[in-house]
């Protein structure tokens, strides 16, 4: 019991109370999340503009994507958001074993997502559905500028994929904390912060999915 840090021991001197520290940390995470939204948002705006200018490109490009894989990944990520929320809940209620398991399942979901992504990407490479000058696909040869769709596809889903990977690593870090008893109902700030990040990653995919897979 004494090897477990108490909540007060996390209280740093430049914060008046541990409550203020918690509120500040959370606020900092939200500010960071806003930068994430603006970053992906810029890409979404660019997508919207080009989609409105070249609807054919996006309609035909979208038809080359596997809806089943996309829907599966959507369900997997939504479920992983659920298990992460559970993980935070269990830390808040001092059920650290449950918390670690929940976080473990979240990481497994992230891996499933990335594996499906790998299959999608390798299939595109195989079919020549690539951006710019690397586009060598036969089926869409008569659609001018078809490569534009795949420029957006790889950029946006790729950047998102990097976030999934980074998020999975951070959840692993939190899982170790839970297993070692370094978080509890008195101090769960890192778990909550990582959780918020993970939900934003899910949020972005919720928009990416219809915009790429369900056009036309």
């Amino acid at each position, binding site marked *: *019991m004494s090897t*477990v840090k*108490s*909540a*007060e021991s996390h209280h740093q001197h430049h914060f008046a109370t*541990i*409550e203020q520290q*918690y*509120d500040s940390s*959370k*606020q900092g995470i*939200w*500010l960071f*999340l*806003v*930068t994430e*939204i*603006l970053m992906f*948002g*810029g890409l*979404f*705006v660019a997508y*919207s*503009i080009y989609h*409105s*200018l070249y609807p054919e490109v996006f309609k035909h490009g979208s038809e080359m994507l596997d*809806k089943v894989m996309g*829907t599966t990944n*959507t*369900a997997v990520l*939504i*479920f992983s*958001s*659920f298990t*992460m*929320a*559970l993980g935070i*809940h269990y830390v*808040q*209620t*001092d059920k650290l074993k449950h918390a670690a398991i929940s976080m473990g399942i979240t990481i497994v979901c992230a891996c499933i997502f990335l594996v499906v992504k790998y299959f999608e990407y390798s299939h595109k490479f195989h079919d020549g559905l690539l951006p710019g000058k690397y586009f060598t696909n036969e089926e869409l040869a008569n659609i001018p500028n078809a490569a534009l769709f795949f420029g957006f596809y790889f950029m946006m889903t790729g950047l998102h994929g990097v976030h999934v990977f980074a998020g999975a690593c951070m959840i692993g870090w939190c899982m170790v904390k839970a297993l070692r008893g370094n978080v*509890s*109902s*008195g101090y769960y700030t890192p778990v*909550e912060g990582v*959780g*918020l990040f993970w*939900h*934003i990653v*899910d*949020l972005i995919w*919720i*928009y990416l*999915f*219809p*915009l790429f897979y*369900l*056009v*036309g």
Partner: protein
Amino acid sequence: MSNHSEDHGHHIIPVKTYVGVLIGLLIGTFLTVWVAQYHFGEWNMVVAMAIATAKASLVLLFFMHLKYDNMMNRVIFGSGFLFLLLLAGFSFMDILTRFKIIGQF
């Protein structure tokens, strides 16, 4: 060791609520894919975005705890979204009011 947990008074969302949100999200996903098979032209994307926004709201309010959080975090998130709207608004105003000049006067 958790003698300070009572001081926090943090709202802890029950597991049942999380399960409800999960089901809502999965229903929304199913709806999105189901509607996509019908052809409503431009409205397809509008419906898809509306459902996506509903799902996003569920994630924000419950999974991300914004419903029970202090106002500042809601304002912070809202402001980010507002600036994004500005970006989209001005960019579209520019693009959609461009005309190709063909031929001579």
